[in-house]
């Protein structure tokens, strides 16, 4: 399963999802959030919700010089191995949608785990969990 942005036009920009993602690890605030919501050049135009798309062959993992981003077998997306990561930031550059967030304290990337915790806190059904195509095929 992966987290999917179902309908951005319904997003009201409340950022409840961002706070949820930080709370997932028991923290208040936004520092630990792996999802971002920003206006598309002014709130009158609506929002974009930026989060890992669980690419089948993730560019971030491909550019990591130490192999600290491990593609998740058949499910898309990556797992971050903090001990292997040297904080070079290549992954951040490689993600063209900007879904590699940064933990300024540890100087390491933060990438959505597709746990689905935020979904329950989006009051407008913008977010949902979806099966990857590959997973559908297996069934």
């Amino acid at each position, binding site marked *: 399963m992966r987290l999917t942005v179902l309908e951005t036009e319904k997003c009201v*920009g*409340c950022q409840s999802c961002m706070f949820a993602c930080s709370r997932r690890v028991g923290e208040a605030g936004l520092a630990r959030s792996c999802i971002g919501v*920003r*206006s598309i050049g002014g709130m009158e135009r609506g929002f974009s919700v930026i989060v890992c798309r669980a690419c089948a062959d993730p560019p971030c993992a491909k550019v990591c010089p130490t192999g600290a981003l491990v593609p998740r077998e058949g499910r898309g997306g990556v797992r971050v191995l903090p001990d292997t990561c040297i904080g070079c930031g290549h992954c951040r550059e490689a993600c063209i949608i900007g879904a590699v967030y940064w933990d300024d304290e540890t100087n390491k990337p933060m990438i959505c785990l597709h746990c689905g915790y935020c979904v329950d*806190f989006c009051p407008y059904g913008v977010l949902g969990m979806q099966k990857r195509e590959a997973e559908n095929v297996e069934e």
Partner: protein
Amino acid sequence: MLKNDPLENILYIDLTRRTFKIEKRPDLFEKYLGGTGVATQLLHEECPEGCDPLGPENPIIFAVGILTSLFPLASKTVALFKSPLTGNLGESHCGGRSAVSIRMAGYGAIVIKGASSMPVYLSIENGRVRFRDASTLWGMGNFSSGRIIRENEAGAGLRTIMRIGKGGEKLIAYSCVTTETFRHFGRLGLGAVFGSKKLKAVVVSGKSSLPVSDKKEYRKLYDEVYKTAVDSPVMKKYHDLGTAENIVPLSRFGGLPTRNLTAATFEHAAKMSGETFAKKYLGRRLACSHCPVGCIHIAALREPYEDVSYFYKTSMISYDYEPIYALGTMLGISRPADFLRLMDRVEESWGMDAMSLGVILAWATEAFERGLITTKETRGVRLKWGNVKGYIKAGGYIIDQPNDFYRALARGVECAASLYGGMEFALAFGGNEMPGYHTGPGAHLGYLIGARHSHLDNAGYSFDQKVLVEKKMKPEETIDALLAEERWRQILSSLVICFFARGIYTPELVTRLLSIGGIDLSTGDLDRIGRTIHAEKYRFKIREGFALDTVRLPERIFETPAPVSGLDKAYLTEALAYAHKTIRKELDAAP
């Protein structure tokens, strides 16, 4: 308060010297929680007695609270300053991204003093403050200046951009500060205080982690608050139609001020209703940061250009009950598109408080009708109920101030009436133009005794509709009830909880949430703190020359019948005398 909570940091900025410093004041936040409580103390510390509201010594104080970014709906920033409109306590609240951004940048409050010699904007990012040249932005409206700053500054999605329009630059006494295009520090003229300091905008951004006393309990409590906020029927009306829902019921009830309160029902209420706006114009829904309710309703107005065919302009314009009252029913405007056209000017270009402007134009229309002013004063503008073109012209002149008449309008309705007559229908209370409720004695007493003369101080309009409509009360009982509400609201606005969520944030819940932030207080403590803050505000008001026993009662409110009986001079005078005495006692008892 928990160790490492950045709330205790106060950022002091001096625009004259272009310096800043950060001071830790845990004492203030522990005693007064944040928001209005802390800001009131800072106002006492920073605002010299009798200072010129438009002078460099008038401070701008922003404060947020301990629950901001911890729980939903603690989403307001409180601004305190000395008001250029009333010459007294200026307090205005605003949502958008402002509160979360200030908290996430690592501050509990920001104090801005001094004045710049040239236009500047401030860029505040975590521990850094930059003074940036805003000469290019001067003269620009809210949309354009917002767009340019957006493109020049970091922190997309994590920032607030507070800015002024032409009204603030021109020191219009009731100009506002806009954040995130559609939210405002609307009342009492913060825009002019910005303008007097040559401060075009303040950008604040940040992203941080906040400590909680117990992670598991935090998540549990959060879920509880979140569920109530999303499911609760008390929030539903704000969610569905927004505050505009009130237009029809208020008019039917007979409490909707119309045509400068010559009537209190509007025959075209259905045309200007929340339902009509939703059906024909609603184009987008928005929320403040960390608010799942999303009460902000934005209309899309599509209009052809007059000079060229097949070109259209689509404007996005926010609407709410209060602007529909002030720029709609008060001016006899019955076409939503006309209201939106006027509102667009007010919001985008002029940057003025919609409520004050509406009341001022309503007074001017009646004065014009009665011949107190003529086209000589108005520079050819025919002020007539419903004539939106005339109102747009007059608003433009208020900005340009080509003569004494428009200079007077730029200073508020009382100033204009003192020069041209018609004080009996100049609808201001304590110098602040009237909010949109003519429900009965509760509403008007509420405006009169409220620390900022706003309907939000103590919700007298609600007291009328819920209590006084059922049973008569002695003047003292009404005052006691209003003061009790206002004291409790000091707690809510110190925690910067949106008043729309007052139904879910009960004293009992508040104490539980506070303990997550490491503050252990009983409901009794909250009551005591609320009293102290209220007394402290009044101490400031009295210091600056306000007196409840001499406050002006506009005749008009007694002429137009209100739905709840008891709105007569004798009742109000008695009530005010009692309020005066009670607040005096409160001040003497305060520590």
